[in-house]
Each structure stands twice: as structure tokens, then as C-alpha cells.
């Protein structure tokens, strides 16, 4: 710590020296002294979206969608060593607050099919619940890092899924399935199979993309609400926990 501060100070001084030497501005000299801005105009402008009394629902003051689930005593997931395993990282609300994807597929079936796909290719699966992020790319990357093979799958409770590899950038991936409403169980099974094939180092043909250009109109508001449910269940101190939730 001490060394850091000294180093920073030394470099900062060197930067300032060089900037001055170059005749450039080191700081941002503005020429004005203390200036306090005026406060907002007496009455803040009204938004044109006033909710007529009794016409629209008042949600003001509501701060949660669901009560907080306790993960007291949950077992922290261990770093894997098995080179044949694929770690499946599910979302914080998975099988607890949310039981079906945005398209209505039961999450028990989703998990069963992904696992079956992995096993059909002769690899093994391990399920963890990710409690420190609800971003599907980070969920998948963390799962990949935990996995003995370096391959992981992230599945949000709304069904969005990513296959990841431990040494890739977080926001890239091996395969991404962003349009959760279009997913079926066959696709989830193929995801398991492809993840296993990446473990085996085979030449993998990515699962064909699907696309519904009206998906945003139909589902985006619901997706936002489901993501809020997932995000409010995060428990960062718990990290990633053992989750064999497929009943």
C-alpha cells in the first residue's frame, strides 16, 4: 500500500512536470473562482406524463418485487479439477422466486435438458447458483472459471443462456442465446451437448440462430421485471453456491 502511494505520487509529479514542460495544461484552470450555481427554478417543470389520479396504478414507494431469500448456511461452490466437467451457473432467483422462463418453460425441465445434453456427450455437469452477479455473460464466465474444464454455461431465470470459456473476454462468448422467449427444450439440450463438445475440443457447429424481430415489443418490459426479481436476490458475500436444484 505504502509503495503504491509513493509510486503514484512520484508518477503524478512526473506527469505534471512533463505536462508543464510541454506547455500543456496540467489541471483544468478555468479562471473563475468559487461559483455556486442557482438552485432549480422555483417549480420544477412538470413531466408531461402525469399519472391521473385513480387512472394509472400508483407504484410509488414500492421497492421490491419479492421478499429476500435467505442463503444462510449455503455451501460455497468449490473450484473444479475434473477436466470433463461443465459448470452450469444459474441465476439468483432460479427455482426459488422464478420457476419458469419468460417463454413459460419450467426451469426444472431447462436444467434437466442441459444436463442431459452434457451427459449424452460423455461429460459431467455440476450446477451452481451465482449470487454475485445477474449479468448472464459474467455468470457464464464465472462458471467457466470454476469449471475443471474451463467451459461453463450461464442461465438466467428468464432463460437467457451463454456458453463461455474461462480465458475469453467477459462480454464475448462461445455461444449466446439472447432471445429467451424463442428457446425450447430441444435447444437447451443442444446447448448442453455443444458445451460438452467444446470440452472435448471437437469441431463444433454452433446451434443455429433464431430471431423474432418483434420479441422486444412483446417481452422487453416483462424481461426487465424478471431481471429486477433476479437482481434483488443477489447476495454477493455468498458468491457462488452449490445448487442441485433439479428436482
Amino acid at each position, binding site marked *: 500500500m505504502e509503495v503504491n502511494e509513493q*509510486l*503514484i505520487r512520484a*508518477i*503524478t509529479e*512526473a506527469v505534471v512536470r*512533463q*505536462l508543464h514542460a510541454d506547455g*500543456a495544461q496540467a489541471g483544468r484552470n478555468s479562471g473563475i473562482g468559487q461559483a455556486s450555481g442557482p438552485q432549480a427554478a422555483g417549480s420544477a417543470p412538470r413531466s408531461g406524463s402525469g399519472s391521473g389520479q385513480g387512472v394509472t396504478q400508483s407504484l410509488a414507494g414500492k421497492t421490491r418485487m419479492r421478499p429476500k431469500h435467505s442463503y444462510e448456511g449455503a455451501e460455497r461452490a468449490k473450484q473444479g479439477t475434473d477436466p470433463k466437467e461443465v459448470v452450469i451457473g444459474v441465476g439468483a432467483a432460479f427455482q426459488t422466486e422464478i420457476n419458469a422462463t419468460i417463454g413459460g418453460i419450467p426451469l426444472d425441465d431447462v436444467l434437466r435438458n442441459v444436463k442431459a445434453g452434457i451427459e449424452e456427450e460423455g461429460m459431467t455437469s455440476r450446477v451452481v447458483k451465482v449470487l454475485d452477479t445477474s449479468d448472464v455473460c459474467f455468470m457464464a464466465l464465472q462458471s467457466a472459471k470454476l469449471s475443471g474444464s474451463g467451459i461453463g454455461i450461464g442461465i438466467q431465470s428468464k432463460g437467457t443462456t451463454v456458453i463461455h470459456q474461462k480465458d475469453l473476454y467477459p462480454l464475448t462468448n462461445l455461444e449466446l442465446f439472447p432471445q429467451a422467449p424463442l428457446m425450447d427444450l430441444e435447444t437447451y439440450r443442444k446447448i448442453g451437448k455443444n458445451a460438452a463438445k467444446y470440452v472435448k475440443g471437437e469441431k463444433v457447429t454452433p446451434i443455429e440462430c433464431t430471431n423474432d424481430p418483434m420479441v422486444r415489443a412483446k417481452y422487453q418490459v416483462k424481461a426487465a421485471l424478471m431481471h429486477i426479481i433476479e437482481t434483488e436476490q443477489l447476495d454477493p458475500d455468498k458468491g457462488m453456491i452449490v445448487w442441485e436444484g433439479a428436482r
Partner: protein
Amino acid sequence: MSRYPLGLHEADTITSKTGKKLSQITLEEVKRGNVTSEDIKISTEMLKRQGQVAAEADNPQMAANFERASELVDVPDAVILDMYNKLRPNRSTKRELAEMARELLEKYHAPHCAKLVLEAAEIYEKRGILL
């Protein structure tokens, strides 16, 4: 003072990072293998001139960006990619960012970029996004 667009008014004075004149970057030269990807990169000098254009257009923020960019011209592609990744959240320790600032300052003579990195190191520490 530069006359914008420089490509129209001052084409004769424009050279690439490697010192090639614009008029030397031709299809014939490409076919002969005399133009490499390094030859189609911008020079420090051109970035400084474009920075002046931005400053004259009352856009000091853009001028400052071109200033930082001019300092990065000679930083190799791989190093730039690596530095960018290290500046992302939760990728570096404070010491690593300080070392990066030092490298920018001492090896590449990039004080404005070094300053940005140092500021990042401070605010990242305050906001808890260092390793």
C-alpha cells in the same frame, strides 16, 4: 492554422505514421508490396493538426482526445489492447495501474494518457473496483 478538410486543402503536406506521403499510397505500390498496414495509420503530427481544428471549432474535449491519441500513435497495437483491458473494472491492482501510467509516461512519452490512468486508479480505489 490548418484549413479543414485537410485532405482537400493540404493533401500535399499529409504523411502517414511511417512518413509515407498520401501520394505514395497507391494501388500500384500496394501490389508491389510497398504499402503495409503500418503505412495506413495516422501520424502524431496529423492528430495534433486535427486537434487544432477541434479547438478552433470550440470543442476542447475533442482536442484533448486527439492530444491523448497523438501520444498513443507509437504504442503497439497489442500494448494498446492490453492497456485498455487493464483499465476495465476489476482487472488491475492500484500498483498495476500506476505501473501502466509509468510505462505510458516514460516509455511512450504520453503524459496526458498517464494522467487519465492515474485519475482512474484513484477513483477506482475509492469506488472499490480494483483487484
